[in-house]
């Protein structure tokens, strides 16, 4: 680990003025610092800021950036109205990590690409311009959608996948005092030729809250995560689904996917293939076709394409009451 400066902020305003890398739970950043994958000059500890409550707002919830994953998963309002979020949170990491990991930090969790972690390997995300060892190497956990010739890493999170399906908005504070409300759909970037830039956050910009709108009335929610072991493994494929059916017709569909792309993936074409149609196999197949039309495997991860199809179709059946 490289030496670094440390400062503790006593307000969000002081934090953004402090000019450093924010640290809260540290469940990801500290590991990366020990490996010297990340070498911040300065850490600004925001863990004691007053951003750890969940408030009701506009029929939805305003979640403080420092609310631990465990607390958010156990919040009765989340369990009642956003079960997809609670389940996604509980599908992530381990009990110990969920106690430390925060809402804001979890949005910014970095990829688990093997080559990102190995400082001897080529990785455009860790060291821009160095290349991508995943492309011609072992890439079983890598992305099949939205990739670029520079990076095929995935976003590893579960919580953000559920939030994407719930149309969450990220609330931030910038060093100049401005606040922004960024829809989660606009928050993450695809790798393109700058895979080291993962979000639209500006330098020094702090996530203070995540806002969830009221849940769609009458919708059913589901989070399904497919992984290599029963716990403490990242998603190979995950799906967060929020679907409403009225009078035999799908009236609302929000589907987000983990393990497939550089960001929690959501594609309007998938939902377009469902809304207005009867919840039947033909619609489900069409949704899967829409999801995977641009999918590309890189060898070891080819299986994610059929796996995503199977998981999506099964999730749609479960969400719409079709018998399995």
């Amino acid at each position: 680990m490289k030496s670094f400066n440390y400062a503790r902020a006593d307000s969000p305003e002081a934090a953004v003025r402090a000019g450093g890398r924010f640290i809260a739970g540290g469940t990801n950043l500290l590991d990366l610092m020990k490996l010297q994958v990340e070498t911040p000059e300065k850490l600004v500890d925001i863990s004691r800021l007053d951003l750890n409550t969940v408030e009701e707002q506009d029929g939805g919830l305003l979640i403080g950036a420092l609310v631990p994953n465990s607390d958010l998963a156990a919040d009765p309002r989340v369990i009642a109205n956003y079960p997809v979020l609670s389940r996604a949170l509980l599908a992530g990491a381990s009990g110990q990590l969920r106690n430390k990991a925060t809402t804001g930090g979890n949005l910014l969790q970095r990829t688990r690409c093997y080559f990102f972690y190995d400082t001897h390997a080529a990785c455009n995300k860790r060291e821009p311009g160095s290349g991508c060892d995943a492309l011609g190497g072992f890439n079983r956990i890598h992305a099949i959608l939205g990739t670029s010739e520079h990076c095929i890493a995935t976003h590893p999170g579960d919580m953000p996948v559920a939030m994407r399906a719930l149309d969450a908005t990220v609330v931030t504070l910038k060093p100049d005092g401005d606040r922004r409300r960024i829809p989660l759909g606009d928050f993450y970037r695809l790798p393109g030729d700058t895979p080291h830039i993962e979000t639209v956050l500006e330098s020094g910009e702090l996530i203070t809250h995540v806002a969830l709108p009221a849940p769609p009335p009458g919708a059913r929610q589901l989070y399904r995560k497919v992984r290599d072991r029963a716990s403490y493994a990242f998603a190979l494929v995950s799906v967060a689904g929020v679907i409403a059916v009225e009078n035999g017709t799908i009236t609302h569909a929000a589907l987000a996917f983990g393990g497939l792309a550089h960001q929690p993936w959501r594609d309007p074409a998938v939902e377009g293939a469902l809304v207005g149609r009867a919840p039947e196999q033909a619609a489900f197949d069409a949704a899967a076709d829409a999801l995977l039309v641009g999918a590309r495997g890189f060898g070891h991860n080819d299986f994610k394409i059929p796996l995503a199809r199977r998981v999506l179709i099964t999730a749609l059946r479960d969400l719409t009451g079709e018998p399995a």
Partner: protein
Amino acid sequence: MNDLAMDAPYRPAALDRAQQGLLGKPIDRYEAREKVSGAALYAFEQAPENTAYLAVVQSSIGRGRVTRVDAIEAEAAPGVIAVIHGDPRMPTGEGNSRAMSAIGKDEVFHYGQGVAIVVAETQEAARAAARLVQVSYEETPGRFDAAEVEIQQDHKLGFLPPVNRGDLDTALAAAEVVVDRTYTTPIHFPAALEPHATLAWWEGDKLTVRTSNQVIGGAKGTIATALGIDKDRVRVLAPYVGGGFGGKTGVGPEVIFAAIAAEKIGRPVKVALTRRQTAYMVHHRSPTTQRLRLGADHEGRISAIAHESVAYQNEDSAFLEPVPFGTLPLYAGEARRFRTDLARIDLPATGAVRAPGEAIGTFAVECAMDELAEELGLDPIELRRRNEPARDPTTGKRFSTRRLLDCYDNGARRFGWDQRAATPGSRREGEWLIGMGMAAALRGNFTVNAEAEVILGDDGRATVRTDMTDIGTGTYTILAQTVGDMLGLPIAAIDVVIGDTDLPPSAGSGGSFGAGSACAAAALACEDILAELGRRMNAAPEDMQLKDGVVTATDRSSPLADLVRGSPISAKGKTSPGKESQATSQASHGAQFAEVAVNAVTGEVRVRRMLGVFDIGRVLNEKTAKNQIIGGMVWGLAYALTEDGIVDPRNGRFVNPDFGEYHVAVNADVPQIEAYFIEEIDDSANPVGAKGVGELGIAGSGAAIVNAIYNATGVRIYDMPVTLDKLLPHLPPV
């Protein structure tokens, strides 16, 4: 010294007369309180005043040699005391009793090899400075791709020479049913929870290392060899070891590095490998390719059995995975062929990892047996019953004890084997396909030289002293139980002193030989103490009864303390292999059963329950024995389903050398597991009649799971582990 070679079956009469009732009981761990309260200090958990910290600089190339080390920047870094390289005593890899890695060489045998060390005031400073050491190399092409390397049949590696009995080709040609399958198994990391750690210091010309090691007597000699000093100048301490799994049987380069650094700076030096470093600087289990051929008649009688494999090793090491070791005595069949070929590869060393040979060898043969049973339309247990040999089918030796058939029957009854669907893929619960599988478990039993001293002190307390280790296995506890039963003392009256090479030399913990050998030595020492007590009581030992610290002869009794007041009794015992060890075929046995659920949509496999019945000779402690068996079964689960060390064939690096992506089983993967014992004291094995237990649980457990996956899905996977991507193409459409 009561020195007993196993030239004939032997059991101390006092064990049969024991009144204290300790052996076999599920007694809590002797050191449990220290461990759960944190009072038990592991190798890294002590820092004498003035301790410095060491970090290892690792090779960034896969093959070649070091041409230059530029330490200027590192030496100038904050807190750095010294950068050491080029010392002719520095080893390139791990040493053990069989072979020392190359020393004093600038040759790079694999990526991640230690090529220089940094010593600093703190661990953080040492690790940061290690990245500043600039190493130049002359790189040569490396052999990193297992599929591409040349296979050598004529090699001298390993302890297991090829076996050829009868005419295999003719027997296979004549067989009415033949199964011919090739299985592959991946790299397994030993993955002990406590990483390799050492504290080294010199007092004059004497070196002491406090380290995490399974076999400290061997380590002492290896360290002396590496440093070029007399063995008597080395003392190794390892009172607590946080798991070994084979990875701590040798002496890692970091131990020698610490000794060299401590000498150079004149201060104690401490080092702990990072998790990622353990992948490179500790040996792993070789990946294997295993071809199994079984020929049988329509009745299922095996006439031909061949288990031919390829295992891997680098140019710096001498071990070779004895893949078919467990297959040798397992099934009848006249024509037999067993061999393991060598593929030289430029990767970190392969070595002995829990049940070398049996862990993965029994996997392949037990999967092949499942296929043969199906071909024949026989129940898998019935097939095994029909091929249960009366003598060791490879060596012709008689078995010491073998209760394998009882294990099958008992296990089948307890597990509900009769509920297994005869037709694969026919049992479904919602999305889940349910199946059952079984396999035999076998692990060779070994007796090795072991000494112990027992002192019956002034106060009537007994102390047992031996340089055994307890790597989480229960050594402390079983030694106390043995001495307690022999001398009629409760556990609380016994002090167990182990983990120090100044103590009488023992077996160490490896090859499942530690418990039987060490407890035998302690029991033999106690025999001499009993003889002396008899003299003091003026009674024949067989007329004495000892319990709770009181000796009773025919008509009188005396507290032990009174008999030894002012005149403690000290005795040594030694056990070693002998003619009986040579004349018999010895192994622990078991039957493993598993029920799995395979998700028909995703291919995810979840084990629902596991059950095993085991024949391990005398059960020394039911609780610690079950702990070990269940731990082995859990590892079998993990290697069947998840554990998979991946090499990048472009450069010889590991892709997943950490717990994030090298998937050991976690709690949620581990279902209800039951383990039972069929106890038959094996008097040919050693004087306490215990056979090995530490490695048996992993044998066969993976095969039982993979066979259960077949029963659930009708899909056989030959490439371990069975991850969902391998099952997916074979699952029904959604």
